[in-house]
């Protein structure tokens, strides 16, 4: 079997039995990247030398019988928002275009400890602000289903890399949907773990109360394997939760929903949702019922205010977090001619270094936090956040998990919403509530929309620290649909075949 078509679980087994070496697996993926990434543009940096060195080290350890981590020899693509010693970290921004961070993110360290091969850094919307990768300073990534479509965002490079078989696994971050939305539109699996379940140390901050690292995979089990490898308490992150990692891998293998209480969120459907998406979602719900789940409808009346609350909270945090890009200690410096003072240099640097969406959000955040507007905007949004958490609490009093479509539409065209911020923001309509509440959610493919033939994602949401329930439900859906389709959904992606 072609190495790049194998799942991470299959690669782990083949590597463990020495059927293949880590070097062969890594080289196969580097070859695939060389063959297709000029069309997909999933990667900002390809780490060929360091990846092959890591792979050789894994092969060496295996040959001498030394202990190996859970992902030993498996390539992983890492979103370019995680700091990596020896590799650039740009966040898709001109302001960090030449930055080589002096330390590794906790997630980077954990990947290395697990023996994963960091094969490259993936494209993203600048500072993780966007739903399409069109806000990257280095050009958009392309959806492997149709290269004229967006791969989602902000972790669109990571999703596209996995969907294009350039890596079996990838890491992203989810602040308003930036893992689940690209997973949905690329026809793969993506998880936003419980906030505080995966470390933010070394993740360049966008909105600190929301940013959550998480996994992408082509199968539910693969996502679970990566989820488990990167998760757990980190004393370097003051919002890290000191609790055991939920048993996500066991849950993905269990794949059983009999007796599980599932709530359909009625507020996440209707106007603005593509008919082809709603049809596949309704079928997925019927499928879950046929597998023995008890399905009821649940209303979360404040979810309709989640999008406006998010676009006050996230930009407010961003306007504060991005103040660190001051042209003094690292990153771009523009206009330092010996005559201008520090403030002028700062303003010229930020003007040249930030793209339009980042500027919009910094200014929006500054507005929402201004004295005189604070109570009406940021303060009110924080109260709405409480009401959304209460909606979830009430719902999880009645059901074990909630379900909705992952996105209101399938992948839209590159350029279609690029200069229409409000239209772009709607892509995260279904994913934002879980970010505001800090609970766990996954997107799993549930078919192709009849209206355009593009992938549709089913979102499953679970209470904080009950991430294992996501995998139980997603794995059950995946297994039942694979039986129905006779092949993985992704085998129908034809964007790279012409």
């Amino acid at each position, binding site marked *: 079997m072609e190495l790049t078509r194998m799942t991470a679980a299959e690669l782990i087994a083949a590597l463990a039995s020495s059927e293949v070496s880590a070097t062969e697996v890594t080289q196969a993926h580097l070859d695939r990247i060389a063959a297709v990434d000029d069309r997909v543009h999933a990667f900002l940096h390809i780490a060929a030398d360091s990846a092959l060195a890591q792979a050789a080290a894994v092969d060496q350890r295996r040959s001498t019988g030394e202990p190996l981590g859970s992902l030993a020899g498996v390539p992983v693509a890492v979103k370019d928002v995680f700091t990596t010693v020896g590799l650039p970290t740009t966040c898709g921004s001109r302001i960090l275009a030449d930055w080589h961070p002096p330390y590794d993110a906790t997630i980077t360290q954990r990947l290395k400890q697990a023996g994963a091969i960091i094969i490259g850094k993936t494209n993203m919307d600048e500072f993780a602000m966007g739903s399409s990768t069109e806000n990257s300073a280095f050009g958009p990534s392309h959806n492997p289903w149709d290269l004229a479509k967006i791969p989602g965002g902000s972790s669109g490079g990571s999703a596209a890399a996995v969907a294009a078989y350039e890596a079996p696994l990838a890491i992203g971050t989810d602040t308003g949907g930036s893992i689940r939305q690209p997973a949905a539109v690329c026809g793969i699996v993506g998880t936003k773990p419980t906030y505080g379940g995966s470390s933010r140390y070394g993740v360049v901050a966008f909105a600190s109360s929301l940013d959550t690292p998480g996994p992408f995979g082509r199968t539910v089990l693969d996502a679970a394997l990566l989820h488990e490898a990167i998760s757990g308490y980190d004393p370097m992150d003051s919002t890290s939760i000191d609790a055991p990692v939920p048993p996500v891998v066991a849950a993905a293998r269990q794949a059983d929903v009999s007796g599980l209480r599932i709530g359909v969120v009625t507020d996440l459907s209707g106007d603005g949702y593509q008919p082809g998406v709603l049809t596949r979602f309704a079928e997925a719900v019927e499928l879950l019922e046929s597998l023995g789940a008890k399905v009821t409808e649940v209303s979360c009346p404040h979810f309709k205010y989640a999008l406006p609350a998010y676009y006050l909270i996230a930009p407010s945090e961003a306007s504060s977090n991005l103040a660190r890009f001051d042209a003094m200690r690292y990153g771009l410096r523009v206009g330092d001619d010996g005559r201008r003072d520090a403030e002028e240099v700062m303003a010229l640097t930020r003007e040249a270094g930030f793209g339009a969406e980042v500027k919009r959000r*910094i200014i929006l955040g500054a507005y929402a936090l201004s004295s005189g507007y604070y109570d009406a905007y940021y303060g009110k949004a924080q109260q709405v956040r409480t009401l959304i958490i209460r909606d979830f609490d009430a719902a999880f009093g009645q059901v074990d998990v909630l379900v909705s479509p992952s996105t209101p539409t399938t992948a839209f065209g590159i350029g279609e919403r690029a200069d229409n911020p409000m239209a772009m923001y709607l892509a995260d309509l279904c994913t934002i509530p879980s970010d505001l509440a800090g609970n766990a959610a996954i997107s799993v493919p549930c078919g192709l929309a009849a209206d355009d033939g593009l992938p549709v994602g089913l979102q499953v949401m679970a209470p904080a620290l009950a991430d294992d329930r996501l995998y139980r439900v997603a794995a059950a859906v995946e297994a039942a649909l694979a039986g129905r389709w006779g092949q993985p959904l992704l085998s129908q992606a034809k964007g790279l075949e012409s």
Partner: protein
Amino acid sequence: MPITRDEVAHLARLSRIALSDAELDHLAPQLDQIITAVAQVQEVTAEGIPPTSHATGLTNVFRDDEPRPCLTPGQALSQAPAVEQQRFKVPRILGED
């Protein structure tokens, strides 16, 4: 109209972004549209509802104060735009007079 072009220019100055006139012309109406949309939160009755700044409920998180290895001066300065005498070299921060 919740936000004017002049207000956007003022916020950009506060945010240390030297926006061009063309950008201001483009951004101001977009921000006006966004603020009109997010102002929907004001419809919600939230009398007596406490604000949530983050969802974990953790407070006052400290690490033990233990010495441990850290970046060397060379590493810390390695990404600086300008360095002099093992320090970050920055443009002047005070006026000429």
